[in-house]
């Protein structure tokens, strides 16, 4: 019970946000396209939060996060096709299994690579991300319905406002509870000084693996939501550039801040999609001039991100009682 009672403020904010969104969605004021973008921003937040656990809190620099996101998406889509999942009720286990698949792969990959030092870890995770992309591109050779470079088609559109929003809220709470527990404390110790953490009784290998596995799990859930929101998957949605998107959200929001990731996720999706909608078609490529300028300005204004290692009181994502 104290899972909920220790987060009254956050739950209250969430319910209000949900009611406002629900009203907007029902009003017919938002096009289908905009609604989809809003739901996608929740997916981006959830997936980036996973990367924040790995990188922002624990200090393990990963450039392959989109690979785990892709594993979640394809696993969920594949299982859904095999088990003919079409209702919300049967979708929930699929959602969890998408996350679990990414978590298990994260664990298996993490065992050898998390021993590596920062820069080598970056290369190893980058390699992993590329490997996933290549495997997805050729996936139809092994399993026809995965679609390879043609993409995975015909996934039922099950994800709606309720599923996307409350999955995000629930997992944000789980993450908050982990971060403000001894585990989150150990993760931050490891980030600050791994050797001192060892000397004070923290099994650093195990804790790094735990953070990595959990972060990948969140990415996998994000991927599974993505699959059943867009009903079409293509390997290019899960490549290196997508990993960079998540990294930008973590860094802009602030390393080691849940609130920061939430704000930055909303901001990032708004900017990217807003420019896509706002700019005339011939000037669309101009985005890639505006976006870097925007990023440079944000980083000059807040070099450590919006909320580095802090949580806003407003959202009530602190330790709580």
């Amino acid at each position, binding site marked *: 019970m*104290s*899972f909920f009672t*220790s987060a009254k403020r956050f739950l209250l904010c969430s319910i209000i946000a949900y009611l406002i969104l629900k009203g907007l969605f029902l009003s017919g004021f938002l096009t289908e396209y905009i609604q989809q973008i809003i739901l996608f921003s929740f997916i981006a937040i959830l997936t980036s939060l996973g990367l924040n656990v790995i990188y922002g809190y624990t200090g393990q620099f990963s450039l392959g996060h989109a690979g785990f996101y892709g594993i979640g998406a394809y696993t969920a889509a594949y299982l859904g096709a095999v088990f003919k999942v079409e209702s919300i009720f049967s979708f929930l286990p699929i959602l969890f299994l998408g996350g679990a698949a990414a978590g298990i792969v994260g664990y298996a990959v993490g065992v050898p690579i998390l021993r590596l030092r920062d820069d080598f870890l970056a290369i190893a995770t980058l390699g992993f991300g590329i490997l996933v992309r290549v495997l997805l591109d050729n996936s139809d050779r092994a399993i026809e319905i995965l679609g390879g470079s043609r993409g995975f088609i015909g996934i039922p559109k099950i994800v709606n406002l309720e599923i996307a929003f409350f999955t995000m809220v629930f997992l944000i709470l*789980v993450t908050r*509870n*982990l971060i403000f*527990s*001894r*585990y989150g*404390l*150990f993760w*931050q*110790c490891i*980030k*600050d*000084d791994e*050797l*001192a*953490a*060892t*000397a*004070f*009784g*923290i*099994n*650093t290998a195990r804790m790094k693996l735990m953070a990595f596995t959990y972060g990948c799990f969140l990415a996998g859930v994000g991927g599974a939501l993505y699959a059943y929101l867009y009903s079409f998957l293509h390997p290019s949605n899960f490549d290196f550039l997508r990993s960079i998107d998540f990294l930008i959200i973590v860094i802009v929001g602030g390393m*080691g801040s849940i609130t920061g990731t939430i704000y930055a996720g909303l901001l990032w999706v708004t900017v990217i999609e807003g420019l896509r909608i706002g700019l005339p078609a011939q000037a669309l490529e101009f985005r890639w001039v505006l976006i870097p300028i925007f990023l440079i300005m944000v980083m000059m204004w807040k070099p450590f991100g919006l909320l580095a*290692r802090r949580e806003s009181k407003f959202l009530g994502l602190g330790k709580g009682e």
Partner: protein
Amino acid sequence: MKALEVSGLKKSFGGVQAVDGLAFSVEEYETLGIIGPNGAGKTTLFNLITGLYRPDAGEVLFFGRRLDHVPAHRLAHLGITRTFQNLRLFNGLTVSQNLTAPILGMHGYGLSSAVFRRRRYFKQERSAEEKAHVLLEFFQLADKGSLGANNLSYGEQRKLELARALSTNPRLLLIDEPGAGMNPREIRDLLATLRQVKEHFRLTIVLIEHQMGLVMNLSDRVLVMDFGEKIAEGTPAEVRKDRKVIEAYLGDELKTC
């Protein structure tokens, strides 16, 4: 009973024989001072005892138990902690969290207690905070508990380093140059603090220090190292008179204490 027994300990780095066949022991509740010139191998000795380096030869016994194959992160659980010569605090954490992290490493709660915020989570968190508070009071840092550790002054960071090493109730405390970089006033303060630590916590202590005043005042026995070897050992008075020690190391520094 011997708290620590080191024999035939060796470690080299490339061509440098940092520790070269060292042997000594420390009785329970005793304070052993270790002195020796820069590069004598003192810190390397601590790193060998605490499992950060693996010895090339020799063994370390802690209350009769071999430490060779104990992973480094188990040592705090067995009752060995240390301070670092160059401060290694958890700078992104608060002063208080620098203590609660090791405390919660000893007496924890499971994953489900954390995720579902079961009663055990609150109970253990509260008791860790209380314990940290008591320690901070002992070191006159109680009002700074919620500051970032890197916002403390240098002398206060040294104290926090010591408090952290005591937070897990160790039986053996290894202190590496607590007075490094301190001025004479801070050194006097440190001496008083270390005296209190000795009185208050019943501990076995090994203390590395260049400040003669500190070592000679606090130690029951002193061991002198040079080039990775033991060149003398005895009570502070005996070591002061040892001709080899005077030649190798102490020189006129002796006159000052």
